């Protein structure tokens, strides 16, 4: 069978993989494979950070939490609001992906813009939270692991915001279409991944006492 011949399997892939495939129909496009591999490496990276957090917690005698003198961490209101913002941004990103699969460039531009704003809002809220916590990265093992985990996640959100800015600029120039939008699919995958990591982080840091 020729590699170019469409099969019933490829015909059933739907618009998502249709757009993700190069035009010679020889499988998933290289940028998407690259993004999947990158996300796999990032999962291992965050897995290491979570392992360090649990290890530090297990080997620390006494109370686990902020150093004496600092307030207890509370999931409400700010952390919960930030979580809602980030989860909402995943939905708006997906609305953008669905829009460009239909070939709607205007909606793509709008949803990517909204996602970018929500990402910036999340980062601003996180920086404000840092400034109000009352302990720093050097204040004990909890402070170190807390800032390392949330800080690296924040850096990844910033990386996603950079990608989103590029998407927004390119979408404004009309560079995406229903058949040519692999960058939108790739960045959306990354953004969903960052969102999922935050949900895990939020649950572990604030609820797993």
């Amino acid at each position: 069978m020729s590699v170019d011949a469409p099969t019933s399997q490829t015909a059933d892939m739907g618009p998502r993989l249709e757009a993700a495939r190069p035009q010679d129909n020889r499988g998933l496009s290289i940028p998407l494979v690259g993004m999947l591999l990158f996300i796999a490496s990032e999962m291992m990276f965050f897995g290491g950070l979570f392992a360090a957090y649990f290890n530090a917690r297990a080997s620390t005698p006494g109370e686990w939490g902020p150093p004496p003198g600092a307030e207890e961490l509370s999931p409400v209101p700010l952390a919960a609001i930030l979580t809602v913002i980030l989860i909402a941004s995943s939905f708006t990103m997906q609305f953008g992906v669905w829009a460009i699969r239909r070939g709607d460039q205007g909606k793509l531009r709008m949803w990517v813009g909204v996602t970018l704003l929500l990402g910036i809002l999340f980062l601003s809220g996180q920086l404000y939270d840092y400034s109000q916590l009352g302990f720093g990265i050097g204040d004990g093992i909890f402070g170190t692991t807390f800032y390392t985990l949330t800080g690296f996640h924040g850096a990844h959100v910033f990386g996603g915001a950079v990608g989103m800015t590029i998407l927004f600029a390119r979408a404004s120039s009309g560079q995406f279409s229903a058949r040519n939008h692999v960058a939108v699919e790739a960045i959306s995958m990354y953004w969903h991944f960052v969102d999922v990591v935050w949900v895990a982080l939020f649950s572990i840091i604030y609820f797993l006492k």
Partner: protein
Amino acid sequence: MNDTAVGFALLGIGMLFVLGLVFVVSSRAGRAPRGPVTPPAGVHLPPPSLLPPLMPVAGILLFAGLAFRPEDQFANFFILVPGLLLFVAGIVGWVRAANREWTDTERGSHHDAPGH
């Protein structure tokens, strides 16, 4: 506003600056053709670049600037500022290189070079 809050506010302003810079550079890539973009023949790889190793070096300087600081300061600015400049230069350079590649691909300058 205490020193810590000022430091985080500056970090936020720096992030916004980088995002603005990325937007301006990306917007200058120009409008793509209306029709479907044909990928170049062969395997297209970016040219050799010093930017990938530059970014982690910048990252090391940034974190070192935060970790190895005098007691009374938010960060060691002699390490942090060069790290920040390298980081910004790396991002700008990378986006510009990506735009150049995009333009070259559109012009088809690599079509006759399979394996490039």
